[in-house]
């Protein structure tokens, strides 16, 4: 509402008087005391410093897209604020930058995710999935003892020195573990090996490159590879591990060393064997428009989607209409000068609007408890009867709309009161002189004039309620559940709470791809409806 008003104010409002062309802005050059110019220089220096710092960190990390965006924004910012010409851009640029960062990026990223299978089991890149599978399947040999371990080095090659049954042994990736009888063992740990240099643990921990080498080092315990090799996770103890899976990068396959089964990378983003068994960790791949069709064809979602879409429309429409008319009636009544104590009463009416919506929804959830011992509504107004406000599919829908009425009528009361007070008195007076009655005046004069100013708000309110996640989540959590489908959705779920459920943020199986696709569908629905209705409201304005 505020943006709407300020925009109108900016367009219609006081036109600045034509400026003296000769006098340039005091931010352009040194002029008088020069505060404006200095302030601009300082601020632009700050912007440039931040931009260069951010760009530099992007460069260091090899984030080329980000680097390009940063450099581009910085160049444009400098051009906009140091050039004489782009005057409108001087005002618009920050807004445009925000638009790009907060809106376009989000929309673009949602679109990107909607085209992938991102979700549980397809959460990482293929390289990360391979790493995870290899490390998950490098298994400790059963009953392998834990060896105290020391990192040693010889001619730049790293090795492990371990203590096995009191005797020291040394080995590297190429030389299997061999006894080192002349090594010094103190407190059960190797402290010196002739011919080798002991690398202190702290040095290993403090040097990331060295640490990576130590983590990757596998020292075979014998000449037979099947016996396994020693590895360490913390540079102080080691155990014998055996790799179950072997990765062939050229063929893009993982082979189970024990059974010989070959798992091939598929287009679905998983390693699958001949017999159809798949390895648990998959990766993200593009699936095209599969998510969009899945929403309508998958048995689990198709049925609920239709019901939920229908209810979403009913909910959004009913919420707006009911609360608008209730607010309007109250506004008409309390706009009458004959009502005493109008100010106090008006303030009281606004109270529900003053509480945070999620808090009110939670309170209502408690008050509507079916058991009259806990639910005050049943106790006070229904003689302690057991009415299942939130557990019966139909009653739950009614409750949701009624609670939303309670939450939003003060808004319409406020808006309508304001609009009524600003209606031109002369038109109404003219109507009265022409012999129009009260109802006629309201119907032909007041209401059309009122709609001119409130119709855009009605549309905005519809769009808001279409995505009124807070109320649904806090009041019913979507329940009561559908009993005819295995999808974990319920009778009062609206599209956005369905998206939340599918996204798996709250737990359970996540499907970000499908959730993003549904978000885009919602976006399109709201966009189309708003566009159509705004076109209709232009006709309303013709009464002016």
């Amino acid at each position, binding site marked *: 509402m505020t943006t709407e008003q300020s925009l109108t104010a900016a367009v219609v409002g006081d036109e600045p008087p034509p400026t003296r062309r000769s006098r340039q802005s005091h931010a352009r050059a040194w002029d008088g005391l020069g505060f404006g110019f200095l302030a601009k220089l300082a601020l632009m220096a700050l912007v440039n410093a931040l931009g260069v710092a951010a760009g530099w*960190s992007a460069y260091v990390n090899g984030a080329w897209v980000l680097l390009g*965006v940063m450099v581009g924004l910085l160049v444009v910012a400098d051009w906009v604020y140091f050039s004489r010409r782009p005057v409108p851009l001087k005002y618009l640029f920050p807004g445009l930058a925000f638009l790009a960062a907060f809106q376009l990026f989000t929309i673009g990223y949602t679109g990107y995710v909607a085209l992938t299978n991102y979700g549980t089991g397809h959460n*990482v890149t293929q390289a990360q999935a391979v790493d*995870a599978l290899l490390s998950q399947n490098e298994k400790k040999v059963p009953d392998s003892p834990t060896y105290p371990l020391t990192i040693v080095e010889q001619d730049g090659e790293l090795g492990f020195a371990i203590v096995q049954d009191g005797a020291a042994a040394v080995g590297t990736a190429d030389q299997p573990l061999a006894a080192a009888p002349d090594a010094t063992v103190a407190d059960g740990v190797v402290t010196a090996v002739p011919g080798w240099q002991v690398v202190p643990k702290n040095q290993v921990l403090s040097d990331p490159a060295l640490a990576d080498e130590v983590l990757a080092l596998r020292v075979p315990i014998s000449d037979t590879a099947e016996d396994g090799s020693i590895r360490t996770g*913390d540079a102080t103890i080691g155990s014998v591990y055996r790799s179950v899976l072997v990765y062939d990068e050229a063929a893009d396959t993982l082979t189970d060393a024990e059974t010989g089964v070959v798992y091939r990378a598929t287009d679905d983003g998983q390693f699958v064997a001949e017999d159809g068994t798949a390895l*648990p960790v998959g990766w993200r791949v593009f699936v095209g428009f599969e998510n969009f069709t899945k929403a309508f064809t998958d048995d689990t979602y198709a049925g609920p989607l239709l019901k939920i879409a229908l209810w979403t429309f009913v909910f959004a429409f009913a919420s707006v209409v009911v609360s608008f008319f209730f607010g309007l009636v109250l506004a008409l009544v309390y706009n009458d000068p004959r009502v005493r104590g109008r100010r106090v009463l008006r303030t009281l009416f606004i109270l529900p609007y003053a509480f945070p919506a999620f808090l009110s929804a939670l309170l209502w959830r408690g008050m509507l*408890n079916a058991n009259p011992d806990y639910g005050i509504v049943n106790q006070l107004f229904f003689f302690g009867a057991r009415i299942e406000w939130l*557990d019966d599919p139909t009653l739950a829908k009614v409750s949701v709309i009624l609670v939303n009425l309670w939450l939003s009528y003060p808004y319409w009361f406020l808006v309508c009161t304001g609009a009524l007070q600003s209606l031109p008195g002369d038109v109404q007076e003219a109507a009265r002189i022409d012999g129009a009655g009260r109802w006629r005046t309201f119907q032909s004069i007041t209401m059309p004039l009122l709609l001119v100013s409130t119709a855009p708000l009605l549309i905005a309110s519809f769009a808001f309620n279409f995505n009124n996640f807070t109320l649904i989540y806090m009041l019913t959590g979507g329940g009561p559940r559908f009993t005819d489908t295995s999808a*974990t959705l319920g009778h009062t779920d609206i599209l956005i709470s369905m998206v939340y459920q599918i996204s798996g943020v709250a737990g*359970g199986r996540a499907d970000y791809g499908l959730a993003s696709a549904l978000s885009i569908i919602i976006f399109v629905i709201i966009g189309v409806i708003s566009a159509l209705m705004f076109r209709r409201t232009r006709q309303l304005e013709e009464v002016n």
Partner: protein
Amino acid sequence: MRKTLIRTAAVAAALTFLAACSGNETPAAETTSPAATETTEPAGGATGALTIWVDENRKPAVQAAVDIYNKTNPGVTVELVQKNFEDIRADFLAQVPTGEGPDITIGAHDWLGSFIVNGVAEPVDLGDKVSEFESVATQAFTYDGQMYGLPYALETVAIVRNTALADSTPATWDELIAKGTEAKTKYPFVINTNGTTGDAYTYYGLQTSFGAPVFVQNADGSYTNEIGMGGDAGLAFATFLGENGMKGSGHFSTDWTYDVANQEFADGNAPYTIAGPWAIQTFKDAGIDVAVDPIPSAGGETAAPFVGVQGFYLSAQSENKLVANDFLVNYVATADVIKALYDADPRLPAMTVVADQVASDPIVAGYLAASKNGAPMPSIPEMGDVWEHWNAAESSIISGAATPEAAWTKMLTDLEAAIG
């Protein structure tokens, strides 16, 4: 002037925002640059940087562990990032692949399944120290023979008894109800059903006493992905829920949420409830004396409630795995630190020595005894699909909205479909 200020601040904010939020392929500078690696000499300890995610309750506890660690390793900067516990699982899944995640996070063991299939957790080798922990705790963090985290605390539910209303807890459900009725309170027994959502977690001890575990267990206690709730045992439990539900004797009710059940118990309206250690403070604040006993058997077998295990996970994409491992294995997994964690945030310690030390508190001893009967909550990936269907089935049976057979059979069918 003011406009320029706002505008410039806006541009700056937009730029820093872009810097912070993008870079999906590569980690941003803040997380990767190992703080002052080159400049600081290793003075008696390692150098480097660790980021640990903690929740509000555990922050002082982990801070205590970090303080002990920093005494010997002053060169390692440990940054504790406070997050909502409910957000950590999803955020860890989303951020680890981008490289923006932490090195270590605090977490519950039942997240392990999704961490495995999403490839975000790194195995942790505790070596011989495994034997120093309660076996239920190490089992909980083990998947397919490998350990993926360091357990540090246990939690479970047990019977909480109002000592003014009942002097003991019988060994069977029928005796419990009989004794509860003798107390002449409003209810013989209350339990959190989480309203109409259902709460299979709290009811699980009763369910296992019918021999119907959620998943079939192997001989070593690990879970298969075969549903164990089917067959006669599962149906017997469903029938038991129906008989005691709102259309039956009314000992269970979907009107009871966590708050309602606790309030009724704290008001002295019931001598018995099933609750976790997290609820004890509420009861003490209400001024009632409570004792903690094992859950009685309803179906003839031992009632085995879920044991939840809290621990530390290591990120698969950590840039400081060695330092993180060293921190977990050589510092956190010691009696001193586990005790410090307990002192800062009392949860049952997972390390046997420390558990014995703190067992002098009767409440702690009661929960420890209950956890010995318990089974770890399954951490297999399939577990995430079970909750919603399971909760809903129990809720509809208790409220009488569906017959036990119908609701339980539908749940089993849905689970088969979801797990495949």
